[in-house]
C-alpha cells in the first residue's frame, strides 16, 4: 500500500513537472517575435577597401550589441549608435506595427584571404542571441570582369508593402575557358538577410532546363538553371539564371549591396594524410548594388472589405452541380491568377455578403501555388427563389494603376428545385412532420411537488470529510486484528472457495487430504506442512477462543484419520466430497 502511494505521488509529480516545462516553453515561444539579420555590404572586396557589416533587429522592445568579434586579418568596428525606423500598417481591420534598429559596423581587411566573421552577440528583449556567421573574401585584384558577367535585375524598383517582387540573377563566364573553370561561388550579401521581407518559394524550373549546383556565400550550395551559351558583349558565355521572389512586409527601402560571382579553378593539394582544396585561379564578376523602394499602401480610396490583395489579378469561377434541390451542396470554385500576393490575401467570405443571403455557406478549401490560388466554397441554396450564384467580389490594390479595384466572378445561373414535401428549408417539427407549429398550451396546474431541504455547503463538507475519516477509523480498528489486505488474510478468506474447487477436481483421497490440509493451514495462517501429521484434537481444543466446538473437532479428527488411512494404507479412494464440505463449513461457523 505504501509503495503504491509513493508511486502515485511520483506519477503526479512527473505530470506536474511536464506541464510546467510545456507552459514555460510555450511562454518563452510566445514571448519574443524579434527577427535579427546581418549582412555585409559586399562579399568580396579588394585589399585596401572597406565594407560595412549591417546588423538589424526588428520588432524588439529592447536590443543592444554585446560586443564585436575579433578576426585575425580584419579590423571590425568601432560600434556606433544604431539608426531606428518604425512603420504601422492597417489591413482588413488589423493593425500591424514594426520597429527596427540597424547598426552599421565598418570592416577593414588587413590581408588577403577568405574570412569568416563569427556571429555577433546581442541581447534582444532580455534574452541573449546572435546573428549568423558571414563570409568575406579579400583579394588583391578583382580580375575577371572581361571573362565573366553578372547582372541582377529586379522586376521593379518600387513596390507597395505586401506586393511581391522578384530579382533575376544572370551570370556566367566565357565559354572558351572550358576546363579552366571547375567551380563557381555566388557572393550575395543580401541572401536571407533582407529585413522586413518574406522569402517566397521559387517557381519550379521549366521542363527541359538543366539544373547545376554552385556554391552560395562559400557556405552552402544552390541549384541554378543552365542555359548553355548565350552571346554577351559579342562573345559566347556559358550562362546561368536564378530568380528569387520576395514579399515586403513593411515600408522601408531594401538595399541590395554589390554582389559578386567568383569563378575559377580549384585543385586538391596536400599529402596522403591530409588533403585540402586550394584555388589555382579566381576571377570575379560584379553585379552593382541597387535599392528597391517599398512604400505603404495608400489609405485614400481603400475599401472597407480590403483584405490585403495586391497585384494584377484575373478570376474565373465554375459551379458544380447547377441543378440542385434546396439545401443541396454546390461546389463553387474560384480561381485567381496573375502577378501579385496570391498566397497572402484573405479570401472573400460569401457568408458575410448580402448578395449571398439566399445561400448557406458550409466552409471552404484552398490550394495555393506561386501563380494561382484556388478556393472551393461549399454553398447551398436555401429556396427555389435563388436563380444564380451572384458575383463574388475581391478588393485588390493594383500597383500599376496605383488604385484600388474590384475583381469579381460572373454570375452563374443555377436551378433550385423545391423539396418534395415543402416549399423550402424551414424549421421542422418533431419527427420531421411539416405541420404548422405553435406554442404549447399553458399549464393550468402549478402545484409544487415535494421540496427537499438543501444539505447546503456544510452538509456537503460533512459528507465529503466523513469518507476519509470513516476509512481511517475502520482501518485502524480492522488492523488491530491484522491487516485485512495482507496476503495471509486474503488467503484465509479465499480458503473455503479454494477447498470447494479442489474437492470438485479431486479424484483420490490423497488429493482430498492435501486440499483439506491447505484449507486448515489457510484458516490458521500456517503453512500446509504444519497440518501434516498433526494431532487435530490436541491442537484445536487447546487454541484460545474463538475455536470450534468439541463435536466439530472430533468430526474433523475422524475425517483426517480416514483420509490418511485411505491415502497411506488403503486403496486411495476419495471420500464423499459433501462430508468434507460440511465439516469445513461447520469449522468456519465455529470460529476457525
Amino acid at each position, binding site marked *: 500500500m505504501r509503495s503504491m502511494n509513493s508511486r502515485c505521488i511520483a506519477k503526479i509529480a512527473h505530470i506536474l513537472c511536464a506541464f510546467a516545462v510545456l507552459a514555460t516553453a510555450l511562454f518563452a515561444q510566445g514571448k519574443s517575435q524579434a527577427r535579427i539579420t546581418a549582412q555585409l555590404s559586399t562579399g568580396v572586396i579588394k585589399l585596401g577597401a572597406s565594407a560595412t557589416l549591417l546588423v538589424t533587429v526588428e520588432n524588439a522592445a529592447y536590443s543592444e550589441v554585446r560586443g564585436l568579434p575579433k578576426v585575425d586579418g580584419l579590423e571590425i568596428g568601432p560600434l556606433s549608435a544604431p539608426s531606428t525606423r518604425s512603420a504601422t500598417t492597417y489591413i482588413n481591420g488589423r493593425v500591424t506595427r514594426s520597429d527596427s534598429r540597424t547598426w552599421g559596423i565598418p570592416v577593414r581587411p588587413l590581408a588577403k584571404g577568405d574570412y569568416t566573421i563569427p556571429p555577433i552577440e546581442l541581447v534582444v528583449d532580455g534574452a541573449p542571441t546572435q546573428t549568423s556567421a558571414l563570409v568575406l573574401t579579400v583579394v588583391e585584384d578583382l580580375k575577371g570582369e572581361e571573362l565573366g558577367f553578372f547582372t541582377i535585375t529586379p522586376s521593379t524598383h518600387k513596390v507597395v508593402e505586401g506586393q511581391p517582387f522578384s530579382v533575376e540573377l544572370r551570370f556566367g563566364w566565357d565559354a572558351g575557358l572550358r576546363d579552366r573553370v571547375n567551380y563557381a561561388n555566388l557572393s550575395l550579401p543580401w541572401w536571407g538577410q533582407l529585413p522586413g521581407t518574406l522569402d517566397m518559394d521559387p517557381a519550379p524550373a521549366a521542363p527541359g532546363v538543366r539544373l547545376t549546383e554552385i556554391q552560395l556565400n562559400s557556405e552552402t550550395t544552390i541549384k541554378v538553371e543552365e542555359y548553355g551559351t548565350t552571346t554577351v558583349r559579342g562573345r559566347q558565355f556559358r550562362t546561368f539564371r536564378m530568380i528569387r521572389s520576395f514579399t515586403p512586409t513593411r515600408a522601408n527601402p531594401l538595399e541590395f549591396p554589390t554582389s559578386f560571382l567568383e569563378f575559377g579553378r580549384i585543385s586538391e593539394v596536400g599529402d596522403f594524410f591530409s588533403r585540402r582544396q586550394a584555388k589555382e585561379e579566381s576571377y570575379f564578376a560584379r553585379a552593382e548594388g541597387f535599392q528597391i523602394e517599398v512604400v505603404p499602401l495608400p489609405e485614400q480610396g481603400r475599401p472597407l472589405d480590403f483584405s490585403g490583395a495586391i497585384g494584377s489579378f484575373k478570376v474565373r469561377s465554375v459551379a458544380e452541380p447547377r441543378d440542385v434541390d434546396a439545401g443541396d451542396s454546390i461546389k463553387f470554385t474560384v480561381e485567381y491568377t496573375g502577378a501579385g500576393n496570391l498566397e497572402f490575401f484573405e479570401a472573400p467570405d460569401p457568408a458575410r455578403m448580402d448578395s449571398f443571403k439566399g445561400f448557406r455557406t458550409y466552409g471552404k478549401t484552398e490550394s495555393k501555388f506561386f501563380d494561382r490560388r484556388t478556393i472551393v466554397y461549399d454553398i447551398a441554396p436555401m429556396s427555389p427563389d435563388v436563380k444564380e450564384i451572384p458575383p463574388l467580389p475581391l478588393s485588390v490594390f493594383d500597383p500599376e494603376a496605383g488604385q484600388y479595384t474590384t475583381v469579381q466572378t460572373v454570375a452563374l445561373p443555377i436551378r433550385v428545385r423545391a423539396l418534395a414535401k415543402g416549399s423550402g428549408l424551414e424549421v421542422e417539427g418533431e419527427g420531421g412532420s411539416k405541420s404548422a407549429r405553435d406554442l404549447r398550451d399553458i399549464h393550468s396546474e402549478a402545484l409544487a411537488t415535494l421540496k427537499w431541504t438543501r444539505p447546503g455547503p456544510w452538509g456537503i463538507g460533512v459528507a465529503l470529510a466523513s*469518507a476519509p475519516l470513516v476509512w481511517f477509523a475502520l482501518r485502524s480498528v480492522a488492523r488491530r486484528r491484522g491487516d485485512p489486505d495482507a496476503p495471509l488474510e486474503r488467503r484465509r478468506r479465499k480458503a473455503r472457495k479454494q477447498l470447494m474447487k479442489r474437492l470438485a477436481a479431486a479424484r483420490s483421497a490423497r488429493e482430498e487430504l492435501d486440499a483439506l490440509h491447505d484449507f486448515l493451514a489457510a484458516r490458521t495462517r500456517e503453512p500446509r506442512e504444519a497440518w501434516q501429521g498433526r494431532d487435530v484434537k490436541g491442537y484445536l481444543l487447546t487454541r484460545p477462543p474463538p475455536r470450534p466446538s468439541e463435536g466439530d473437532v472430533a468430526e474433523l479428527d475422524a475425517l483426517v484419520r480416514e483420509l490418511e488411512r485411505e491415502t497411506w494404507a488403503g486403496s486411495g479412494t476419495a471420500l464423499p466430497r459433501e462430508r468434507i464440505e460440511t465439516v469445513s463449513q461447520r469449522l468456519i461457523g465455529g470460529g476457525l
Partner: protein
Amino acid sequence: MTVARWIGCACAWIVLALTASPQAAPQSVAGLGAREAFERGVQAWRGGDRESARSLWLAALDAPADARLDRAEVCYDLGNAAWRAQKPLEAAAWYTAAIRIDPRHADAWANLEFVRGAAGLEPADRGDLTATLRRLLSLLTLAESEWLVVICALAWSALLAAHALRGGVLLRRMAVVGGLVTAVSLVPWIDNLRRNGRDEVFVVAPAGAGLQSEPRGEATNLAHLAAGSIAQRLDSLPGWVQVRAGGDQPGWVREGDVFALRR
C-alpha cells in the same frame, strides 16, 4: 458485527444531520393568495381575457412566497401571455426564467426555441458539444446537485469502509472510482453555485439596448447589447439598470429594455 453496527450508526448520523423531513405544503391562509391568483389567471385565460390572466399571474409571483406554488409554471404561462401579446422577446425571457427555476421543463424548452426562432435569435440549445455540455450541467437544480454530491459521498464512504475492513485490489479500485465519481458530482453543484450567484437580465428591446456610461440619456454610448443577449445585473436606479456583458466594462441600460431573469 460490532464494526458493522458502528458503520450503520455513523451513516445514520450523517443522514440525519443532513436531511429534514419533506416539507409538507402549508395550510395557512397566506399561501392561498399566490395560488388563488394563479388559478384565477388560468380561468381568465380560458375565458379569453388574456390581459387579466397576465396581471393575475404577475400578482401570483409578487405575492408572499408559497411553497405549494411552482413559480416555473407561472413564468411559463406568462411566456405564453407575452407571445400572444406579440412580444416574442419578452416571451423568450419568461421561458428562460422558467428554465432557470426548473431546468427540465420540457414545454418551456420547446416554447423557448419556438419563440427564439420566430424572433430571429439563435437557438438556446445550438446542439453542438458546448451547448449540450452546458445543458447537461444545468439539468439539476441547486438542491438536486447538492444531494447528488451527498449521495455520491456516502456511497464512496461505504466503498472506503468495505476496503478498510476487507482490503483487496477490487475494493481498492472501486474506492478510487467512487472518489472520482464523487469529484465529478461536484461539477454540477459548483456550476449551480456560480449561476445562482449571478443576477442576470435578458435584453427584450427589439432593437437591442444601448450600454451607456452613466444612467442618463445623454451619456456616452459604450456598446450595444443585442436583443436576446444576457448580461449580469450589478446595480439599479429608478429607470436604469447597471449591467456587465461578457466581462466588458459595466454600463447602464434603460430598465424597460431588460428583463430580470431571477423570479
